[in-house]
Structures are given as structure tokens and as C-alpha cells.
């Protein structure tokens, strides 16, 4: 190796040239040496280039008046015209507001829920019971929102749902859970928690299992009760995991659950339930305002990405965990 470098240095004039050509040579050699690894990577890269980076190029539509027949290159450039439309228009801000409000509710109520459930499950000694509870609570996570919408439309039905039947037999009027704009967001948040609470416990239970059992034994000797142990040992031990999950959940505040909202949304609750992703779908695919919808989507993606960068730098500063 060393004699090779010396030889090159003698032949060329500047040392920089010899070093970089040496590096280029060895990189090429590395690809040749590990070519099978690269062969494995090629179909994977092809996938990402076509189906992930391809659409990223398509983002340019947001800056053009896109006519499908003319294609992307043939459509005229209009700069920020569509973004002006988005921000000065009537509908976008309603949709933006709904997205943020629903995400915030989900954060406030949905974030602590799996933690509390995990703490309770952690207390169970009987393995069979513990595993059964977990299996049951994992179930909704695996079910699609088409099915769940079918289930909840039936379960919350004003005429047939058990809650309304009980209300009506007590002389109350039935509650239109899915049709009442005052209740719709609550239903969205509750059903979302119902669906994911079990799945959400997995990571917290994993963290809890890493706590040193001796800590509990010592606390026992000091006369600590169950909830004192939870408060003083379990929770502080899993605090890093909680913090990291909180940071990333907060960073997703502009994201929404298209599947859920789309399947439960109806005309009576559009004002409160329409979110960014459903708006983009309707404007772009049903009304074919391709450029406008792409602009809305781009706005959301940029904010989402900025939040990821922000939350990740916060995460890196506060704990050892981060994405990169």
C-alpha cells in the first residue's frame, strides 16, 4: 500500500491529485470487491428511486399549472400562484385547524393512555392472564379502518347502538355520535385510542422489563407500597423512553390518520372533521385540481420534515436516543 502511494506521488506533481485519485481507485476497487452486496442493493435502490424519489420530482407540479395531457415539462410555470391560493383561500385554514386540533387531542389523551395501561399490565404476576390481556388489546391494531368504521357505525348507531338504546330506555334522546359536529372529534380521538392503546404498551413494557428487580426489593424492605414503587422506581426508569416518544409524537402534530377520518367522515361533520389529507385527496383526485392539491401536500410535508429535524435535535440534547 505504502509503496503504491509513494510511486504515485513521484509520478504526479501535486500531492492532492495523487491522494484523491488513490481514493477514487480504492472506492472503485471496493465496489468490485463487494459487488455482490451492491447487486443485492440494486433492486432495492431501483424501488426507492422510482417510487419515492420519482414522486419527489413530481412535486414541481405545485409550481406549475399542470395539464395532464401536456405532461410535467409541457405545463406552464406559475411560481407561487397555488400557494397564494392555499393561504388566502377559505377552506385550507379550516382543514389545517382541524388537523392540529385533532392531533393535539390525540396527544393529550392518547399519549398517557398506553403508559398507564403498561403500568397496570406490569403489575400482573400471573403469566397466563398477562398474556391474554395483551393478546386481546393488540387486536384492534391489526384491523383496517374500513372494518372498524363498519363496527363503530353499527355500535354508535342512534337506533341500535347499546349506548343509545340504554339512553332511550331511560327517556333520553339518542346521541348522534358520528353525525354531531360537537362530538365527532371526540369520537375520532376515542376510537383512535381504543385501537392503538394495546399496541402502544409494547415499547413501555419492554422498557419496564429492563428495570433492575433489586430496586423493587430494596423499596419493599423500606415499606414502599405498590403505587409508591410505580411512582418512584418504574416511572423514572422508563422516563427516557417516555421523553423520546413524547418528542416524536409532538413532532407529528401536523400528521393525520387518513384511513380513519376518510372512513368515518360524513357531510354533517365536514366543518370539524375534514383534515389535510382528506382535503388533498378530494381536491386532487376527485376534483382534479392537481397543482393546488400538490401545493397543499407540499406545505404539509415541509412542515412535517421541519418538525422531524427540530424534534430530533431536541431529542439528541435531552437523552441518548435519537434517529441519527
Amino acid at each position, binding site marked *: 500500500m505504502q509503496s503504491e502511494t509513494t510511486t504515485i506521488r513521484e509520478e504526479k506533481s501535486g500531492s492532492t491529485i495523487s491522494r484523491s485519485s488513490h481514493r477514487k481507485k480504492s*472506492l472503485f476497487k471496493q465496489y468490485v470487491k*463487494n459487488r*455482490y*452486496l*451492491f*447487486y*443485492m*442493493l440494486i433492486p*432495492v*435502490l431501483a*424501488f*426507492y428511486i422510482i*417510487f*419515492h424519489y*420519482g*414522486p*419527489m*420530482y*413530481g*412535486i414541481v*407540479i405545485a409550481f406549475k399549472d399542470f395539464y395532464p395531457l401536456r405532461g410535467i415539462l409541457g405545463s406552464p410555470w406559475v411560481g407561487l400562484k397555488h400557494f397564494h391560493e392555499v393561504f388566502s383561500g377559505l377552506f385550507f385554514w379550516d382543514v389545517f385547524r382541524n388537523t392540529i386540533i385533532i392531533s393535539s387531542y390525540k396527544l393529550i389523551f392518547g399519549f398517557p393512555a398506553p403508559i398507564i395501561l403498561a403500568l*397496570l399490565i406490569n*403489575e400482573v404476576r400471573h403469566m397466563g392472564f398477562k*398474556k391474554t*390481556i*395483551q393478546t*386481546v*388489546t393488540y*387486536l*384492534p391494531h*391489526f*384491523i*383496517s379502518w*374500513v*372494518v372498524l368504521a*363498519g363496527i363503530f357505525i*353499527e355500535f354508535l348507531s342512534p*337506533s*341500535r347502538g*347499546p349506548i343509545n*338504546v340504554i339512553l332511550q330506555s331511560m327517556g333520553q334522546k339518542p346521541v348522534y355520535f358520528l353525525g354531531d359536529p360537537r362530538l365527532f372529534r371526540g369520537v375520532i380521538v376515542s376510537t383512535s385510542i*381504543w385501537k392503538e392503546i*394495546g399496541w402502544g404498551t*409494547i*415499547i413501555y413494557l*419492554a422498557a419496564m422489563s429492563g428495570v433492575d428487580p433489586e430496586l423493587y426489593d430494596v423499596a419493599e424492605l423500606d415499606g414502599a*407500597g*405498590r*403505587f409508591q414503587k410505580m411512582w418512584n422506581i418504574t416511572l423514572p426508569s422508563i422516563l427516557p423512553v417516555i421523553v423520546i416518544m413524547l418528542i416524536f409524537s409532538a413532532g407529528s402534530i401536523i400528521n393525520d390518520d387518513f384511513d380513519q377520518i376518510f372512513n368515518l367522515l*360524513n*357531510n354533517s361533520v365536514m366543518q370539524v372533521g375534514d383534515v389535510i389529507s382528506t382535503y*388533498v385527496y378530494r381536491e*386532487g*383526485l*376527485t376534483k382534479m385540481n392537481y397543482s393546488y392539491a400538490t401545493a397543499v401536500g407540499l406545505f404539509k*410535508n415541509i412542515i*412535517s*420534515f421541519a418538525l*422531524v429535524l427540530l424534534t430530533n435535535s431536541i431529542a439528541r440534547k435531552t437523552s441518548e436516543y435519537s*434517529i441519527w
Partner: protein
Amino acid sequence: MTSSERTGQIIIDIILILVALTTVFPFLQVITVSLSTTADINAFGLHLFPKHFDLGGFKLLLGYSLIWRGYLNTIIRVLTGTTLSIFLTVLGAYALAQKELPNRTFWTGIIIFTMYFGGGLIPSYLLVKDLGLRNTLFALILPGAISTYNMIITRNFFMSLPKSLIESAKIDGANDFRILFQIVLPLSKAILATIALWYGVGQWNSWFDCMIYMDKESGYVLQMVLRRLLLQGQQPDPNGVDVQVINPDNMKMAAVIVATVPIMCIYPFFQKYFVKGVMVGSLKG
């Protein structure tokens, strides 16, 4: 256990049982309605157990030809999609797991970047359309062929295998393909089970891609058929093709059950695998 600890345990157990019941409760109504007669359904009262056990809803469903078409299409996409996905995921994960991969950080970086930024719905739709994939199986299995999250988990798993295994195989003259298929994969059954489940369930539950890429009913997957059954007659049909059909409720609920029972039966068998998978994935090394 002291008596106060015992009461504490009982309270916790009761709360957990209530949580489990709350999870199961909404399903109860669906099952009941699917097994009831229309008269019983329309009668006022709680529908938690069928008053008269009746298979009429299921019979109507079995006679609905689209449900068979939907089942067939879903099974096809689950089998082909999951196989393709696992194949690509394993290739990518193994390659990214090897430290000798040239420009490894760069390749990993451009792949992970796609988890946080993308083109969005409209550009993706236009791409699939321009590639001529609409109304083909490929529109359903190609765009989502690799889940970056699944690939990262698999990569982390491969990285946790003892390097001596691969090194000794290389000394024996094996190339990476042989190492992957003959040595690494047989040791990776747990992670393969996990991603097989996740990809499989993902394919089973997919409906939106079918909605935007398939024009004809013959291309509908099960979830799409279910959607149509549930919504027919309730909202004006944008295609103007359907006559105002309102499907009987017991048939609708039978469809709900049939669309989800296979998943409900399968996932418990994979429980220990996917629990481990989540742990491996989130506590990234």
C-alpha cells in the same frame, strides 16, 4: 402479600378485564347483528346476543358474487405482495448491514430520508398512472413493496448476528448471496415471521390503493368490496352506476366479519415475534 396489596391487585385485575371487555365489546354487536334476522335487528333493544340464531345474513353474503372476487383478489395480492416485499427487504437489509458496503452511510441515508419526506399523494398517483400500472396487480404491490421501517428492523437484526459466522463462510469462499440464503436466513426465522406478518396484514387491509388505481369491480379487493357494501345506498354514488341499493344489515355485518376474521385468527400466533420486532426496531442501535 399484605391485604392492601391484595386489594390493589384485585382492583388492577378488574380494570384490566374491563379494558379487555371494552376492546371486545363493539365486536359483539357486529357478530350478533350478522347472526340475527332483519326483524330482530329492527326491533328495539340491546343487540348483544342474537335472539334467534339466523344465518340469513351469511347466506346473502355468500350469494354476492363480488365478495368471492374480492377474496380472491386479496389472497392474490397478499401472497404476491408479501413474497416480493420480504425478498426485497431481506436483500436490502443484508446489504446495508454489512460494514464493507461502499458508501454505506450514503445509501442508508437516502433510504431513511424517504421515511420523513415524500412526494405526496398526487405526484405518487400520477407516477403510477404514467407508468401504466393502473388496473394491474402491480399498482397494488409495487408502490409499497418495501417498508423502510421493516427493512431497518431486519437490518438491525442482521447486524446483531455474530460476525464470525459470516467471516468464516467468506474464508471458505462463499459469496454474499450464498451467505445470505444458506447461513443468515435460516437463523432469521423470528424476524422473517415478524415482517411476514406486518407485510401480510398490510396487504390484507389495503383498500385505498385499490380505490384509486382500480376502475372495475373485477379488480376490487376484499376491503374495497366491504366498503362498497357498507356505503351503498347511503351516499349518492359518484359513478351514478348503482341503483339505490340498501343492503340488509345482517349481510353487511357478515361482510365485516368475513373481512377480518382471518387476521384475528392469525396474529396471536405471531405475538412473541412482533413484540420482539417492535423492541428491536425502536431501540435503534
